[in-house]
């Protein structure tokens, strides 16, 4: 049995010691105009290389670039699209993180590649495969204020999907094998599953040889689990921290798609143990019809202090190795 270790997206960009605070200092210097955009980009490059190194050292086999260059999961894409402006801060689901809300002023048009240069840089500094992460079309649409151009969330989601399809196509052609699409908003709006389905069909159109992993953190996904299985994606990422019933449900229904199991709580510092993780694996793994299976944190690790994020990943590796070791 193969259990591949991955991260789920963001990684803390600074740590508590001064050496690990270069990004924060450089960002503030850039805001004051003391350094150029190019100088900030160089610092970002170093931080990306650092967080990739840290993931690999912790034992992660499919890494992300930590989303170090993102202001937040919404405005990072909105900035790359004509027809969208950026508004005030809004709370990201039930977290204490705030994002800038996109305001749609007219028809969307992608200005150019958003993630491709980031992916290419990350790949150049990583000895392990890099998984690009995109915020999904439904979540972008649900989080946007629409002032003009579209009459419904459905229409807007399809427009964002066109933008993301181009992104996915470029990433796939550049060599990305696994591409993650985050759709947390669907957990709170299951009535829009049809919208998500239509938008995903568009996003996946140009994925070529790459596989699309749909991730749905920040809510109890158990009520949607059956429906997620029917969506036009290649794998599902699941946040287990809200869903006490999810392991039994998967054990019962199985999965036709490979799963990425978000068993490590990326929102709390407490470290997982054999007692909390092994029974879940025991219940789920026999029911999976197809692999590979990924193990990952429940969501991006940026909700934790840097030192704890690393410990979480080391715990993930230790538990995986112990689990497989115990079976061989």
């Amino acid at each position, binding site marked *: 049995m193969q259990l591949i270790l991955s991260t789920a997206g963001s990684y*803390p*960009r*600074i*740590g*508590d010691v001064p050496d690990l605070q270069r990004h*924060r200092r450089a*960002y*503030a210097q850039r*805001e004051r105009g003391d350094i150029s955009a190019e100088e900030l980009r160089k610092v970002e490059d170093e931080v990306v290389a650092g967080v990739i190194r840290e993931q690999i050292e912790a034992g992660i086999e499919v890494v992300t670039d930590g989303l170090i260059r993102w*202001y*937040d999961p919404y405005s990072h894409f909105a900035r790359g699209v004509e027809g969208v402006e950026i508004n*005030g*801060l809004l*709370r990201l*689901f*039930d977290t*204490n*993180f*705030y*994002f*800038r809300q996109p305001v749609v002023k007219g028809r969307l048009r992608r200005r150019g590649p958003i993630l491709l240069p980031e992916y290419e840089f990350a790949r150049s500094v990583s000895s392990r495969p890099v998984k690009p992460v995109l915020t999904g079309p439904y979540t972008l649409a649900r989080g946007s204020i629409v002032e003009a151009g579209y009459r419904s969330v459905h229409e807007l989601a399809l427009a964002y999907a066109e933008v993301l399809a181009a992104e996915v196509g470029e990433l796939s052609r550049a060599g990305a094998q696994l591409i993650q699409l985050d759709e947390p908003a669907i957990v709170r709006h299951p009535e829009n599953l049809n919208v998500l389905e239509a938008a995903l069909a568009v996003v996946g159109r140009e994925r070529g040889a790459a596989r699309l992993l749909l991730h749905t953190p920040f809510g*109890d996904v158990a009520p949607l689990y059956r429906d997620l299985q029917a969506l036009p994606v290649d794998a599902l990422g699941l946040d287990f921290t809200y869903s006490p019933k999810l392991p039994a449900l998967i054990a019962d229904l199985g999965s036709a798609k490979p799963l990425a199991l978000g068993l490590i709580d990326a929102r*709390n*510092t*407490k470290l997982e143990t054999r007692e909390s993780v092994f029974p879940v694996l025991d219940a789920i793994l026999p029911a999976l019809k197809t692999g590979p299976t990924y193990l990952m944190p429940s969501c991006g690790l*940026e*909700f*934790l*202090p*840097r*030192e*704890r994020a690393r410990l979480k990943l080391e715990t993930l590796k230790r538990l995986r190795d112990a689990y497989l070791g115990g079976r061989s």
Partner: protein
Amino acid sequence: MSREKLKRLGVELPLLPTSTVGSFPKTPELAEARTKYTRNQITRAELETLEKRATEFWIRTQEEIGLDVLVDGEQYRGDMVAYFAELMGGFQTGGLVRSYGNRYYHKPAIVGEVKWPGPMTVQWWRWTQSLTKKPVKGMLTGPYTVMDWSFNDHYRDRKSACLALAGELRKEAEALIEAGARIIQIDEPAISVRQEELSFAIEAMHLTVDGLPAYFITHACYGAFETIYPDMLELPVDNLDLAISNSALDLLKIFEKDPFTKDLSLGVLDVHNHRIETPTEIKARVMRGVRVLTPERVWVDPDCGLKTRTVEESRRKLETMLTAVRELRTELA
């Protein structure tokens, strides 16, 4: 009806009592001193002298404006959760976590049994109350919000942490009452983030306040209404303070379906906007509440703490609010 409770507690308030949600901006002098203190350039005692001076400034300002129920302005607090976490047993200052953009904060972590360390806010309350004849509210952060805004390394789950905190925060409420506080606000801005946890948030509030002789207010942030009404009426407090300045909610429609059973503080000033509202706007917002409840049950305040505004903006916003309320008192009398 809660007016009778206030009367029993010895508190007489005019029609449409006015108050604020808790924090005022740090005065420029204090803001500078806080920076110096973190750089070890001034002593704790020097900082406290300036905190007191700033608190006194805000008490005088609130009296000049004509507010009815005053606050200490939280000049001595940084973050509304970290302040308690730093004092209580069982907490550790956590590492840095990003809140947005390039902004980071130290998120507290519960690493052992949480424990009330003795009075945390009472000295400030007592001193502040000694400066004025108007009632000063005791100000606490509720157990659910302290839990939600902290890491939990110790308790089995979120509920256990929340209930443990409730038992300890109750001791602070008791100490405030013992010192003479009659109105205590227990803020729960996080209460609407996970609907599925509302039941234990309510259970925690019961543990915190049941049987205690005070008039309790709970402030919840924008968004709470849509997600947890009418269940939030089960919170065992006398007054719910809700942000409506930015909301197009039709209170009439909502209350027709599920009658509002408590006093209602209407947050009519948008604290996240520099613009000073007009008296006409404010009156319209107050009337949305007065039309559906009786005026006796309505309080008027800003929609959140004013700490992100300047001193001058805070003053002008509140002065306008009082102008509007005075006109309404005459019109409704």
